């Protein structure tokens, strides 16, 4: 039966998650050079239309339609057939089915948008659209089904509260593959790529944090104690991530930076995502600290390896999702969420193993399929901008616009 409190909550949470995509656009947009800010924003916001359209025809039914062999949903919900204002019998039974559908849509939208940070400032718009669409269909939808739609990983007992695997590990792995295939920006390692507008990035951070409450809190699919737990651990891990990154950076490079504080917050928030509704607040503090620390180290490490993951999608989302998924294997507690599991620290080492298998499967699958998609798209329409267009910048070269006039 429909509960107005739950329905109100998930509708507002869906709105919050939608807001994360423009929030991400600002977060990323502030970090690029001013000649690429519109192109960067566009790569995020266009996902709202591209992926939403895909979602209502294909994505929802592939992800949440009746299961076929543990691998994918069937076409029963093509064009939202059977998805009405009555509750689904399977998912979120106290809210209208379409509310569940639209809430999940917002997750599908932001995931490919997250990847764009890896190849910022150098990709053509048309092949980028092809890539994102194919990736949503071939990577996001199946993985989403495996874990949240009753697929084989769900059956195995892999847990992911709000998208550590489905969102962050997939986008992190895709980011790594993409920035290697596409290659570094012109002048990488020689010229300095300094963020053109950090207040914009910080505004985006604020909106992301705000939206993340909908992302993690809403994943309880009801306004109940689990939502409360998820909401609280989200805030706690975000602040712990910010605290940790700030302190480590202060110690390590001499000054605490605002970009560091923002990065640490996002790292903490990404890290808690898979675990949010399954762990205690005190565990969330530790998970947030771990996220802040390990993502900081990952970002530093990148500078050694020399690939140009321009806005650190691998270091923050990939590593965050990875660390959080493992941490869930350690800190999960059925005392907190009886629908969850106990982790290693609660006497159940096998759950940690399950989580590691989940990471292996999702990571491996994403890596291979992303690589194939990139190669295929490149063969049809090269992703990389031409040298002098890259010099001119995406805003004029790809969109015939200028971001700023005096």
């Amino acid at each position, binding site marked *: 039966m429909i509960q107005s409190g739950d329905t109100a909550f998930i509708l507002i949470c869906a709105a919050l998650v939608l807001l994360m995509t423009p929030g991400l656009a600002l977060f990323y947009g502030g970090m690029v050079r001013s000649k690429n800010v519109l192109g960067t924003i566009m790569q995020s916001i266009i996902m709202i239309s591209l992926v939403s359209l895909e979602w209502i025809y294909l994505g929802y039914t592939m992800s949440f339609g009746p299961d076929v062999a543990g691998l994918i949903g069937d076409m029963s919900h093509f064009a939202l057939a059977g998805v009405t204002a009555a509750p689904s019998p399977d998912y979120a039974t106290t809210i209208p089915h379409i509310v569940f559908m639209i809430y999940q849509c917002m997750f599908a939208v932001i995931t490919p948008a997250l990847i764009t940070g890896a190849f910022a400032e150098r990709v053509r718009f048309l092949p980028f659209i092809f890539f994102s669409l194919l990736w949503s269909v071939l990577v996001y939808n199946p993985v989403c089904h495996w874990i949240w739609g009753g697929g084989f990983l769900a059956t195995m007992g892999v847990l992911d509260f709000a998208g550590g695997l489905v969102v962050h590990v997939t986008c992190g792995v895709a980011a790594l593959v993409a920035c290697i295939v596409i290659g570094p920006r012109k002048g990488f390692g020689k010229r300095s790529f300094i963020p053109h507008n950090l207040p914009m990035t910080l505004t985006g951070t604020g909106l992301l944090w705000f939206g993340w409450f909908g992302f993690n809190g809403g994943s309880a699919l009801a306004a109940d104690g689990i939502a409360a737990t998820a909401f609280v651990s989200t805030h706690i891990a975000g602040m712990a991530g910010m605290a940790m990154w700030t302190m480590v*950076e202060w110690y*390590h*490079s*001499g*000054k605490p*930076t605002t970009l560091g504080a923002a990065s640490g917050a996002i790292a903490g928030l990404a890290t808690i995502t898979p675990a949010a509704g399954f762990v205690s607040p005190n565990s969330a503090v530790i998970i947030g600290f771990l996220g802040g620390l390990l993502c900081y180290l990952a970002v530093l490490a990148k500078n050694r390896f020399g690939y140009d993951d321009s806005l650190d999608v691998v270091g923050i989302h990939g590593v965050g999702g990875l660390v959080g998924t493992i941490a869930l294997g350690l800190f999960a507690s059925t005392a907190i969420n009886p629908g969850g599991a106990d982790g290693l620290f609660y006497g159940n080492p096998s759950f940690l193993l399950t989580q590691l298998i989940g990471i292996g499967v999702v990571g491996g699958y994403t890596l291979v399929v992303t690589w194939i998609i990139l190669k295929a798209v490149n063969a049809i329409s090269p992703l990389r901008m031409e040298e002098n267009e890259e010099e001119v910048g995406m805003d004029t070269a790809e969109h015939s616009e200028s971001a700023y006039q005096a």
Partner: protein
Amino acid sequence: MKKIEVITRNYKLDDVKEALTGLGIKGMTVSEVKGFGRQGGHKEVYRGAEYQVDFVPKVKIDIVIDDELVSDAVEAIAAAARTGQVGDGKIFISPIDDVVRIRTGESGSEAI
């Protein structure tokens, strides 16, 4: 006629302007510039990557005046802009062949 180009600290702009108007100079043109010099720059850090930024914000003031005003103007400017710290900036003096006031078409000293 001469052009006096002053490159100095941003926050000295008002003082220099007052010094010049004190001499009866009624016009000048200002732009924001970045300077490289003995003053040195600073370090910036973005996600662990360090950059040395050698340029510091400065203001450039262009004043075109008659030759006989130059030495007074230079003195007044230097007095107004001086802090005694490295980075106070420079005054460059260069020749101007002619000046035209667009509004009236006047030229030469008349036009300043």
